[in-house]
């Protein structure tokens, strides 16, 4: 914020993305990330406070749509959302932070401690990205794969996230941290669709223990077509350990991180599948 000269509060998404075309424009949603930023290139703050439509959380039939300015507190108290999503929102920060942290901010920021994207990967969510050229719908895995900054380059704005709760109806989220309000050491989320006892769709995602939230295809492959049993979940958990290079973390050793991945992936899958 050291070189910021202008502070603007657009009245519409169109006006916001027009402002974002200017070099040096930065987006202000909840503000927990931006307010302490020392980015010398930030010249214009585009404050989204007046874009009230983006605060809407809509559940229509088979589709859930979370506006980009929906807060973690809204998710935490929503009645009609998957419990894993409520749990992920509850695990983020503390009450006064959850009151301002937004869905869009959790996605756009692209730092390892963003918890929500991990769960959105497991729900196979799609990110709605709006720019002056129009609206794109980007699978969250692709949105994160390069880095959100690249996905949003050229003045693009996250305007919503959507998913179909029925696609991966068995899902779970686990955050492992030293205290309730600390940054995660490891986040795990998974989503399953099981038909006749056989796993037909699977998502396994990790966060915090990797530089940026990502899916683990090796673990997903170990699940597909297999019976939904503890043995299968154990195999998938082992596959996850072999597939991921943990991020250096001064709080925990590499050996511990590997054991964490295995234990938490297994627990998340067992939790998603429910009591045998």
């Amino acid at each position, binding site marked *: *914020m050291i070189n910021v000269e202008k*502070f603007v509060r657009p009245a519409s998404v169109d006006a916001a993305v027009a402002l974002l075309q200017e070099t040096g424009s930065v987006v202000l949603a909840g503000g927990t990330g931006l307010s302490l930023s020392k980015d010398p290139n930030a010249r214009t*703050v585009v404050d989204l406070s007046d874009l009230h439509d983006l605060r809407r959380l809509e559940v229509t039939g088979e589709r859930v749509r979370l506006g980009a300015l929906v807060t973690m507190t809204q998710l935490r108290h929503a009645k009609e959302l998957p419990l894993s999503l409520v749990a992920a929102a509850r695990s983020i920060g503390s*009450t*006064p*932070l959850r*009151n*301002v942290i937004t869905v869009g901010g959790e996605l756009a920021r692209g730092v390892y401690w963003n918890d929500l994207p991990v769960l959105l990967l497991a729900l196979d969510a799609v990110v709605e990205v709006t720019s002056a050229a129009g609206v794109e719908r980007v699978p969250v895995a692709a949105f994160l794969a390069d880095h959100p900054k690249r996905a949003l380059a050229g003045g693009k704005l996250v305007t919503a996230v959507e998913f179909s709760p029925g696609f991966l109806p068995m899902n779970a989220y686990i955050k492992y941290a030293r205290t309730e*309000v600390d940054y995660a050491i490891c986040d795990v989320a998974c989503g399953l669709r099981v038909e006749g006892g056989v796993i037909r769709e699977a998502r396994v995602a990790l966060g915090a223990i990797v530089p940026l939230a990502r899916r683990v295809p090796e673990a997903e492959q170990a699940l597909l077509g297999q019976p939904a049993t503890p043995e299968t979940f154990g195999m998938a958990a082992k596959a996850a350990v072999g597939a991921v290079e943990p991020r250096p973390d001064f709080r925990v050793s590499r050996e511990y991180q590997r054991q964490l991945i295995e234990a938490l992936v297994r627990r998340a899958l067992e939790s998603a599948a429910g009591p045998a």
Partner: protein
Amino acid sequence: MIPIQMEINGQTIEMEVAPDLSLLDLLRAVGVDSVKKGCGEGDCGACGVLLDGVYVKSCLILAAQASGRRVETVESLGNVEHPHPLQTAFVEAGAVQCGFCIPSMLLAARSVIEAHPEPTVEQIKEGLDGNLCRCTGYVKQIEAVQTAARVMKEEDHE
């Protein structure tokens, strides 16, 4: 400089601020010094205020971002002559030691009781989870919130 206006405890102010000025630093600059600057980066919770009725950490809110909105601090709760039931309960429970975290914690507690008129211990813990208190160990504060909730409910019935 950015022109802003906001309502602070019922009084409207208008001024020009630097784009990186936090709401916390603005409040202290205009003399609202019940709002404390502990860490300045969103960890300690000593700077909590109600922004349009929502409990937030004012060190992470930009003053310009709060323009056009309503800010309430502990001064809006009560004073020595006319304390709020929460303030009375905190004093009587022994929930205040050094007092640095208390103005913000009282606002967090008020939000808890607004959302849950008969809060459970879990609901109180969640509502106060943004506030570090290095003196008390939180037990007495949880008791105080429960006591205040009971008193407020009785006052409502009178």
